């Protein structure tokens, strides 16, 4: 697999680290209490076929965090953008 880093250009998978799904929004309430929104953000994921947004880190490159939209069944990368 190859990902086009907006800074470094098209690079191989070995330079990147996937961490998590980027479909969810982090709660902005400061986290004073463990709300269902926090629990959902941490633990719940939809397991859907088709394009999904993912967080990838250019670990062996410029250390940029990227939001990659990738079709999980065809592996086609549809877009890469900075957060």
């Amino acid at each position: 697999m190859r990902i086009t880093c907006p800074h470094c250009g098209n690079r191989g998978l070995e330079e990147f680290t996937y961490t998590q799904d980027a479909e969810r929004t982090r709660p902005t309430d400061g986290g004073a209490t463990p709300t269902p929104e926090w629990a959902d953000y941490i633990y719940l994921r939809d397991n859907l076929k088709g394009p999904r947004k993912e967080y990838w880190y250019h670990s062996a490159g410029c250390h940029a965090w990227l939001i990659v939209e990738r079709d999980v069944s065809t592996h086609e990368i549809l877009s890469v953008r900075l957060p």
Partner: protein
Amino acid sequence: MTGFRLAQGGLVDRASPVKFHFDGKAYTGFAGDTLASALLASGVKLVGRSFKYHLPRGVFASGSEEPNALVELRAGAWREPNTRATMAEIFEGLEAASQNRGPSLKYDPLAVNNLLSPFLSAGFYYKTFMWPASFWEKLYEPMIRRAAGLGRNAGLPDPDIYEKTTEFCDVLVIGAGAEGIEAATQAAATGQRVILCDENAPLVPIDLPAGVEFLARTTVFGVYDGGTYAALQRLTDHLPSSNAPRQRLVRIVAGRSVLATGALERPIAFGNNDLPGVMLSRAVGDYVTRYGVAPGRNILLYLNNDDAAGLIPVLHQAGVNIAGVVDARPASSDVVHEAARAANAPVYAGAAIIRATGWQGVSGAKIRLAKGGDLALPCDIIAVSGGFNPNLALTSHFDGKPVWDAAIAAFVPGSLPPCMSVVGKAAGQGLNANIQPVFHSGFFPGKSFLDLQNDVTVKDVKLAEQEGFAAVEHLKRYTTLGMATDQGKTSNVNAIGVLAQTLGKGIGETGTTRFRPPYVPVAIGALAGAHTGKEFKPTRLTPTHEWAAGLGAVFVETGLWLRAQYFPKPGEDWLAAAQREVNAVRNAVGICDVTTLGKIDIQGPDAAIFLERVYTNSWANLPVGKVRYGLMLREDGFVMDDGTTARLGETHFVMTTTTANAARVMQHLEFCAQVIWKELDVSLISVTDQWGQIAVAGPKSAATLAKIVDSPFDLSDEAFPYMACMELTVCGGVPARLFRISFSGERAYELAVPSRQADALARALMQAGAEFGIAPYGTEALGIMRIEKGHPAGPELNGQTSAHDLGMGKLLSKKKEFIGRAMAARPALTAPIRQTLVGLRPVNPQDIIRAGSHLLPVGAPAVAASDQGHVTSAARSPTLGSIALALLENGPARHGETLRVYDPLRGGDFTAIVTHPVHLDPEGHRLHA
């Protein structure tokens, strides 16, 4: 069948004879010969025995699709099994041996398998050897393994050198036949970068324009995402063993690819069609035209299409007798009739071969004539053609299913990988003129083989279908058809044809199995390249490595790093050395390289706010010149890492992490800075390698440091109390950073200098501390001391512990936002039943507690239900004996209780007392000693 070298013809270099050995016997061939062509030229007909039945086998094909002629090549550690003799180019001194036979290829006692063959049909592994179950491991499995092996591994480490490289191009053309060369030439003409690969070495030089890089002896074996292809380039397989790199794994990143891999012939199955002498018709032609070899003297053709008729004039011109042409098509065809007439060869239209006859080789064929009645024809070669299959394996590496094209009775590529196009015969063009599909001649005397390598017959396919394995993917696994090293290249389509007929379905409906990389077997050494043994991963060395090695240090791998583990004096084992080092630190002074702990330089207007957000405790109020312990949680509230962070300026901090988590913490901090709080103005720079850092610990640490710290800098307790930091110079002007922090529990400091000075600093410290009895200490002593002091480290920060579990609940600020705040507040993370940090001492001082032991109540049965925790860290303290840290349910409430420490793996089973985790100096007096 007795092959011979034709007086002329072929592209081999007849002026360059090459001597080689096969099964210990000497032969001569010519440069350009493969082992197969040279053996055929020498009249060798038997080249191996089959996998299951140990039947005699000869050369069947002329390319990498060869199923039978698998040999062991070379000797000793270089010996490689399952090499296709049709691909092995001979060189002077080559040694090859047949496989899978008894002491002699000719007389194989294991051929008695054949008599048992009714019991060895499809699925026999599942059906026989079932009972008694206890016999399986000790008797049946070893028996089967001994009897059914294909080739022998050398059993020694691979001595060859393998390379890896990456190439980029606009167009990758796979296959250097006429169509491939044309595609490459056209692409290069438009200025594109072209790479052309062919799995053979051309016997005649190919004329290519500049801009085309030609990789010969290179097999593209896999298609991957992102326009990435994997190819194996055989650099010296055609040469004697040497120190030159043997093979090169080439990763090719291509804008697009053109598949020009041509087509592979398939046979027609008939009785005893595995006898040496049954060959693919085009292979027979290849041996004549490329190598100048006639595989036999009296050749019978069996075909169902016009393409194969091309062999007739080739044989005629070479002066080889044609015994006849058996054409499965009722009226044969004009093409066949004409060619046969010109060659004076009889044509038997609408006929079929019932079986081949002969002992250890073809001597004739029994034919059923169209009008009825049988005919026995003498011959020594049966050149068979059931048609040609587009060589489309690479097209389905992306899940594309090939599609049956009834007009040419072949599978053609279906959906293709992105950016791949297919040309020529690989796309099904110009193939199988006038074909009438026949997969099996229809008679069952003896065995009609489909998969020659795995010994799977037509009957096996029918049996599998009878037993319910009617889906093509089930058929493959139940019969093992197509699962050998040739991956069914000459058998898959015929098997599908037979299955379809048995099911009464169309072939398209029946479908085909998926092909996956690799297209050919690839040595694991080629996939590893240089990354083998100690070089599997790179090694990171600390800046004092040479100094420590000079002192006889024994090193331990900590991730990629090598760290000094202990510094044994003569006669000391690891424990004696470590305990001596601990005593030196606790009674005098010791030094230890701590460079490997991650160091992150954090600067910027929002540096303090950033720290507030990523640590659980307060940072904005940390004065400049002070250090604080920091606890970092994951978003789910569990502990990620800990360390100390020093404030060197209003907007300048230096954070430390554990060695193991340095990269992970950096990644996490970058996520916080780039994604979560993009608005914060903060920069993060790793300085782990910039600063060599040495811990100086013990009652004499200050006195030692005073001798090397330059004069204006004040080390007194008033000016530089516990948890202070400063920038200074040492040893006459070397810029340094000093931190008064302690991992050992003693008065201690950590001194950082630019890495190139760290070696000199270590030596200077040893000199300065000599009068006090200074000693270097390693990670072993470091570990003993931190366990004595109850400091959680890696084994306690195991990703499953919360701050509360580690006794650090008070470090969670109630006033500010920080990573993990919300989820750490879940009541379950502070429930008393949680396994929390305690200390342990054995009741009997002779017992030694070991990490990993489980904690059970005394008297409870030793089962999982009794488990209340486990020992995370254990040490043998020189002053306290066996001590440990453990995680125990409701730990802090159970100090003084006696527990059973149970270690069934190593035989430990004794009692211990639960204590406070800090075993030594709980009030911390020694920090100021």
